[in-house]
């Protein structure tokens, strides 16, 4: 399977970021502080989701799962299929509104769950099925 791009993630992030800006306004600060915060937040809302969208990638092959996420700090994780322990599909309220879902792939390590966010629901379901069947094919206890 080759590199697949996912769609419509930024919408979720924009809404999420508007919520944070709303919270900032509640702070008792002077008008220029609020103004500066608003400008910063506007820049954040305009740029970061796009940046994030540009960075986020995922890829599944016969033997491994690979994810890339983050924006300022970029994180790339690779887990071999033989070490996959569980595959979770989660959908928050916002994600459901947009018809999206995230997939979390956990391994035996405490440090390395692989998360793929903002997938189209249908794609996510297919991915989960795909991963479970592939992980099931490999022998061993995954530790």
């Amino acid at each position: 399977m080759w590199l697949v791009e996912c769609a419509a993630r930024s919408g979720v992030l924009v809404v999420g970021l508007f919520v944070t800006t709303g919270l900032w306004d509640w702070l008792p600060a002077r008008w220029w502080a609020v103004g500066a915060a608003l400008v910063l937040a506007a820049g954040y809302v305009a740029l970061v989701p796009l940046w994030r969208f540009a960075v986020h990638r995922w890829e599944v092959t016969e033997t491994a799962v690979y994810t890339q996420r983050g924006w300022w700090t970029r994180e790339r994780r690779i887990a071999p299929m033989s070490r996959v322990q569980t595959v979770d599909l989660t959908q928050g309220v916002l994600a459901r509104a947009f018809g999206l879902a995230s997939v979390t792939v956990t391994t035996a390590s405490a440090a390395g769950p692989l998360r793929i966010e903002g997938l189209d629901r249908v794609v996510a379901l297919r991915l989960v099925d795909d991963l479970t069947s592939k992980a099931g094919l490999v022998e061993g206890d995954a530790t």
Partner: protein
Amino acid sequence: MTDLGPEPWLRLDPRMLLVHPVREVVRFLPALVGLLVAGGASGAGAWTLLGVVVPVGLGVVRYLTTSYRIAAGRVELRRGLLRRHTLSTPIDRVRTVDLSATLVHRVLGLSTVVLGTGSVSADADERLELDALPQPQAVALRGQLLQAGRSTESASDGTPATALPSRTVARFEPRWLWYAPFTGAGLVAAAALIGALAQGMEMFDLRVALSEEDVSTVTGAVAVTALLTVLVLSAALAVIGYLVLNWGFTLSQEGGAWHVRRGLLTTRETSLDEARVAGVARGEPAALRLARGARLSAIATGLERSRERSILVPPAPAGIVAVAASEVLGTAAPMHAPLRPHGRAAVRRRYTRALTGSVPFVIGTAGAVAAGASVWWLLVAVVAVCVALGLARDRALALGHCLVDGFVVTRSGSLLRQRDALATGHVIGWTFRDSWFQRRVGLLTLEATTAGGRGRVGVPDVPAAEAIELADACVPGLVSQFTAPSRS
């Protein structure tokens, strides 16, 4: 659960009837004292009796309701009176066996058995704990469990594990006590003691009246004496703590497992299945390094986040630690091989980061001097910069990685320097992390994830190409399949 086989359920040792009540009485001691006082005042002795009967009763109930058995390849533990709780785990999932005995246990010849299964759950209810069995029976159980786990795992091995003789790799020597004050544990203990004292003084209203005059009479000599007292106190506490924890320490290999035995009052015996030891971590905090000491802990499944149990060698001479490490890993190379330095960019990054930390000091003191403070305040800034430079130099020297004899070896840190060696077979994934600054100079933080220990072994600021090369060399074919399409 009950149809697994005719294997009978076994009880814990009846002598626990003595241990449980004693422990319960201790736990109920505040209530007991209260009852005694109240009883004495009102003249009612019956309440006092109740205070003794309830804990004893609890102990009896616990004894009667706890039972365990080993049947059909599973270990099962049943406990609880009102809430029955049955735990069951396959024997081949038992990674570590821990025997410990408190003073009371030792007097009665008992020990507690705790089985580590590599489960991530930290719930106390989910712990497989047998408290307690007679000492010989506990040892026999340990042998049985560890051997059963191995025989199902690698039946092709052929050699019976019991044929291997017991071999001691490291043993406690009184001169190790020299390293105790360099561990920082004493400082923590001293701080705790001082805190407790202060609280006690407050409780009894022994407030020391400090007036302005008193403060002005505190001269340098007094301050130095106070500092010395704290130092001596913390050193003494560290030595005592070290003695209590590590007295009689031995690290030995027996029957395909590593056994760590230690403790003055409460003895602990941790057994690690050899196949489960993924690697070792050698910690060299700055102070300990000055004293030419080091400590060693295991990276193994079944020991998640419990530092106490993963210790292989407590703070000890570096030579002994090196010998123990090479014995455990089966090769001396990971601890001695020269590491590959990370290049100029990584070194420069160490200096920038350390100097950034000292910037607030410089700005602060410069501002103060400009506002009319004594010029001597600038000394603080100079000291801060010097410390930062020293740290940066040390950290830059520490950075390194290599792949030798099937182990990924990484080293980093200055105040808490650590050299980790992880067998490539236990690497279950890779994480590459790079911030914008790191990307600009082509570095990234490389982490190998594993099932044991903290779950990862990592080193910062590896040149990107080298990191990918290393990851690819460790687990062939895993990384390269992703680099080809997205990088070409």
